[in-house]
């Protein structure tokens, strides 16, 4: 249901979907120029959560910055830890033992499932169904309990260290993971029956918020937004890192470009993450979980390095410029949500307001990730 923006006549009025709003999932302000119910122009105003993360990096040592990196996208913190640890290890040339790589991948994929569950709940709430949130959070409790038993924290894990992870995993964790995997597979069926097949839900998201792949390319959108528009790009397959080449998994790609396609990409990604965790648990080697002889105060050699990982919301890139001291000279964060949000303006022209919320929800934004 879309109207060509140039043919509408009549007066337009400006409305703020203000910084405090239940549907924007964070402090995001969108200045909407509306003609009746249709959106003529939607301008996101960001910066309400700007915490100067990149500047803080210039005042902290490499190890101290671990506390910050998890708080950029706090929902998928483990994956961001992964990116940062790998970037510094590449710069300083620190090898990572195999067991640590497997532990990193297992915890990252668990975190990815938790992040998608956290997206799923509020997305359905935006559309009016309040019950699937509670079911999703029940599953999320299982993951957070597992990750708490291994790292000590439930949201802002500072679990990785340069050269490995800070604590080892034990058999309880492995058993807990396997129990969780079998439980989660049933729950995915439950979500399919309750939400995905539901005709009311389908009418709300099918054909809504179409983002053609050209627009995705223009704005640099990555992650499920890009894969829901038919482009098969995933950092884990195209620029593989860690032990991902050894695992057998598929990248879900759907070509319809609407909100339903992005929804299905994320639900299928949860399934694929379960597969990856299972394989990693089967192949888990014994050995050290931390490299030896990693200096306490790390002083990487002069140079710069860029590392790309597949975050829950898209491709997260981190560039570190080092000048030989223990404090980085420059740290640049390429966050996926910034690029994903920037296509909202063009994609929402001529849409109804309620449909634009379905689009905004399906982009899966974490506003502190936009603002850093």
């Amino acid at each position: 249901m879309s109207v060509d923006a140039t043919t509408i006549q009549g007066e337009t009025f400006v409305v703020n979907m203000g910084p405090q709003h239940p549907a924007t999932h964070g402090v995001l302000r969108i200045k909407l120029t509306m003609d009746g119910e249709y959106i003529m122009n939607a301008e996101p105003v960001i910066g309400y959560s700007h915490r100067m993360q990149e500047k803080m990096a210039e005042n902290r040592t490499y190890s101290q910055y671990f506390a910050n990196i998890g708080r950029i996208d706090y929902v998928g913190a483990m994956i961001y830890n992964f990116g940062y640890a790998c970037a510094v290890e590449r710069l300083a040339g620190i090898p990572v033992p195999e067991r640590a790589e497997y532990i990193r991948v297992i915890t990252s994929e668990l975190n990815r499932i938790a992040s998608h569950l956290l997206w799923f709940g509020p997305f359905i709430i935006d559309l009016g169904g309040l019950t699937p949130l509670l079911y999703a959070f029940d599953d999320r409790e299982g993951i957070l309990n597992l990750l708490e038993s291994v790292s000590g924290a439930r949201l802002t894990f500072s679990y990785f260290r340069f050269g490995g992870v800070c604590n080892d995993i034990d058999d309880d964790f492995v058993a807990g993971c396997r129990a969780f995997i079998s439980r989660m597979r049933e729950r995915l069926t439950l979500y399919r029956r309750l939400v995905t097949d539901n005709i009311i839900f389908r009418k709300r998201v099918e054909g809504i918020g179409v983002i053609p792949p050209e627009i995705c390319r223009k704005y640099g959108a990555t992650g499920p937004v890009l894969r829901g528009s038919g482009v098969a790009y995933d950092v884990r397959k195209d620029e593989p890192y860690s032990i991902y080449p050894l695992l057998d998994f598929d990248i879900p790609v759907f070509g319809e470009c609407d909100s339903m396609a992005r929804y299905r990409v994320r639900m299928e990604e949860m399934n694929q993450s379960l597969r990856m965790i299972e394989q990693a648990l089967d192949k888990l080697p014994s050995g050290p979980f931390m490299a030896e002889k990693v200096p306490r105060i790390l002083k990487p050699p002069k140079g710069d390095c860029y590392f790309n990982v597949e975050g829950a919301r898209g491709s997260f890139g981190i560039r570190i410029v080092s000048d030989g001291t223990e404090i980085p000279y420059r740290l640049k964060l390429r966050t996926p949500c910034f690029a994903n949000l920037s296509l909202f303006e063009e994609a929402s022209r001529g849409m109804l307001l309620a449909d634009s919320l379905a689009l905004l929800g399906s982009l899966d934004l974490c506003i502190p990730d936009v603002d850093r």
Partner: protein
Amino acid sequence: MVGVVNYFREIAQGLYTLMVGMAVTFRNLFLPAVTVRYPHETLQMTPRFRGPAELIRDGETGQPHCVVCMMCQRACPSRCIAVEGEKPEGGKRKVPTKFILDFTTCSLCGLCVESCKFDAIRFSKVYNLASTRKEDFILDLLNPKATRGASCS
């Protein structure tokens, strides 16, 4: 004619998915609630849980192991630890006289615990911190009971 059949089939399929959805929620009616009725019931924390830091004391003498080497203070990214110490008369090593942890800025990153070589600081299992005053969260680790906020569970 095909249009009419499709019309009815769509309605029937739509109704069927609605019934399936209602059956899912109905089944949950008979499952127990997952709520933990805090404060009538409490939770047990995992061994590695990160609560506010506490000093490890020697079993017999009750003195903290801390030798005031200041590694934790240097490692903290938020500068929330303040340690002072002095060598007592006839003693071999320094003893802390002041050990303040400003919990309002602590991010529970764990660098202080990892950097300590003398096994003097660790995470506690306290999770039910609640207070109405900011002063209750400037924790004095040498006299933990004095601060109201850090009630041990």
